[in-house]
């Protein structure tokens, strides 16, 4: 085989690998940060080798050797999930950008009703980052969004009312999802677990979450670790339109 053809095939395979790895590392912030740490370790190992720093180089060589294994062990669940997401990303046609006006109105109507009844609620609208990690452990619904269904899910003392509803496009992906609670100290210490959960999911994804407080009936919108009070229809619609365009 001519040398040029070999080089072209070599380059093509290298490109495929780079593209796949890039898609994989971008699928989660945690994995992306680990990539940065790994790059740093490789860089200083290379630097130590070049500068002939004998002890550092020996130690760092060992670290460099074991680092991939350590990363794989730490991130096993994330890696499995993100590999699946990378494979399936092309198949995910629904995203927050195709929430129809009707869906937005149904969500707002439900939030306002739940607020008037002082029923606590947690409704997360997925954007580009997949929330399947939480949906997998919840009750999958895949039902069209409707005000009645959302209200019914959050009726007190029913099996699903404590968890969150995840909305993907125009469908309720699941109900009864449980998020990690935010540990931020920027908010009040007295904040309830529902609001902490909303902040928690907003810190690790680009989703928008609507929280209805059980105690006060207040409606809040949580985006990117920020909580905003939005008690009326206009404000809710404004935020939904602005963030989910």
């Amino acid at each position, binding site marked *: 085989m001519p040398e040029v053809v070999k080089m072209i095939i070599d380059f093509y395979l290298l490109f495929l690998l780079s593209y796949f790895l890039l898609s994989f590392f*971008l699928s989660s912030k945690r994995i992306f940060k680990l990539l940065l*740490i790994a790059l740093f370790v490789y860089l200083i190992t290379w630097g130590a080798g070049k500068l002939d720093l004998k002890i550092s180089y020996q130690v760092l060589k060992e670290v460099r050797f074991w680092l991939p294994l350590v990363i794989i062990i730490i991130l096993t669940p994330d890696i499995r999930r993100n590999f699946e997401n990378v494979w399936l*990303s092309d198949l995910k046609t629904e995203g927050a950008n195709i929430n129809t006006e009707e869906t937005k109105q149904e969500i707002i109507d439900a939030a306002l009703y739940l607020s008037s009844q002082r029923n606590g609620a947690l409704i997360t609208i997925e954007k580009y980052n997949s929330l399947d990690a939480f949906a997998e452990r919840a009750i999958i619904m895949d039902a069209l969004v409707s005000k009645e269904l959302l209200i019914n899910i959050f009726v007190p003392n029913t099996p699903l009312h404590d968890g969150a509803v995840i909305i993907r496009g125009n469908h309720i992906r699941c109900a009864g999802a449980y998020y990690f609670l935010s540990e931020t100290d920027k908010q009040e210490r007295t904040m309830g677990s529902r609001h902490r959960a909303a902040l928690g999911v907003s810190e690790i994804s680009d989703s928008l979450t609507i929280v209805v407080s059980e105690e006060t009936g207040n409606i809040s919108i949580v985006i990117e670790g920020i909580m905003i009070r939005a008690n009326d229809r206009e404000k809710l619609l404004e935020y939904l339109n602005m963030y989910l365009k």
Partner: protein
Amino acid sequence: MRKIKLFFKYLLLFLINPIKTIASVDVSDRFINYLTKNAWLRIVIALVVSAFFFYLIYYTNIL
């Protein structure tokens, strides 16, 4: 001015504990989402990375 101060703060933290500093870098959602949405940009970056390694392996003795 604030950004300059922040840069030196990060620099100092980096010298004290580089791994923790890198882990605490606030990766922008907008950046990740933009790359996730735009396949062409990922292709361009993958091409650049591939070309870089290709150059290192075929034309230099670094690796």
